[in-house]
């Protein structure tokens, strides 16, 4: 199995319910390495780019509100990058199916997720679906210096800036 990396988001309901420790403990059973972690306040632009592929779905707006914490009075997400053999498959297995009611009850979503009366899947976590998505998502959420081991090639970027000077 290939060494890969995957993005995990603990969504606002997970933080609000103080579940991050429980969730990370379950994920630690996969014996993967955590190479990046941070708490993020999700902007509208970041949320829309993250869920870009679902832009045309009728539930898109709710999805954005959910990840931005509008439904939970907790405007925070914990983003993590896991690295190791078959990281995507292992994490998906521990997270369970997207629909919390269809998820294995011993999985994270089965144990902690719920469907609201208005039909939103509050499934506590996000995990990348495949290698292409994981690379896109990790690069969206993290900058190279926030990842502690070299998982993707990097280059020096020139930052041009202007400042006031005496004329």
């Amino acid at each position: 199995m290939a060494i890969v990396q995957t993005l995990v988001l603990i969504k606002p309901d997970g933080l609000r319910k103080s579940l991050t420790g429980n969730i990370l403990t379950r994920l630690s059973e996969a014996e993967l390495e955590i190479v990046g972690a941070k708490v993020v306040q999700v902007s509208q632009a970041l949320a829309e780019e993250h869920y870009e592929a679902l832009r045309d779905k009728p539930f898109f707006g709710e999805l954005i509100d959910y990840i931005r914490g509008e439904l939970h009075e907790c405007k925070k997400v914990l983003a993590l990058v896991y690295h190791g053999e078959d990281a995507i498959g292992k994490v998906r297995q521990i997270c369970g199916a997207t629909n919390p009611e269809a998820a294995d009850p011993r999985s994270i979503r089965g144990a902690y997720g719920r469907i609201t009366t208005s039909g939103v899947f509050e499934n506590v976590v996000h995990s990348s679906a495949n290698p292409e998505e994981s690379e896109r998502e990790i690069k969206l959420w993290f900058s190279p210096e926030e990842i502690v081991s070299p998982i993707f090639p990097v280059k020096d970027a020139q930052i041009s800036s202007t400042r006031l000077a005496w004329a």
Partner: protein
Amino acid sequence: MNERTLSIIKPDGVQRGLVGEILRRLEQAGFKLMGMKMVWMSKNLAEAFYQVHQGKPFFDGLTDFMSSGPCVAVVLEGDDVIAEYRKIMGATDPAQAEKGTIRQTFATDGRKNVVHGSDSKESARWEIDFFFNRLELPEQ
């Protein structure tokens, strides 16, 4: 009184896969996780963080250890969190730490003792500012 403190899960805690278990204990105590980041400190950065201990016999070993692998820095908020977190963490030397504390349970010795915690309001403020900027600490 609501206050903040800095917790660091040290390289031994991260390497041994204890991040989840430690966060679980902190959340169970009712603390809120206001910010978190994974950092691999250089020797220089570790020396800057522990500058108050400069010149002490353990300084070099401590900063070598703290720069030996990635750490997870966490900003906790809660009632009397500086003192409360220190209770949960336990004494520096695991042999002296109270039963059931993080260090009594997981620490191997006085250096590889899994976690760090600020010891006062002043050091908490200084230590949080050392690792986090305003944007990295969302208010709500």
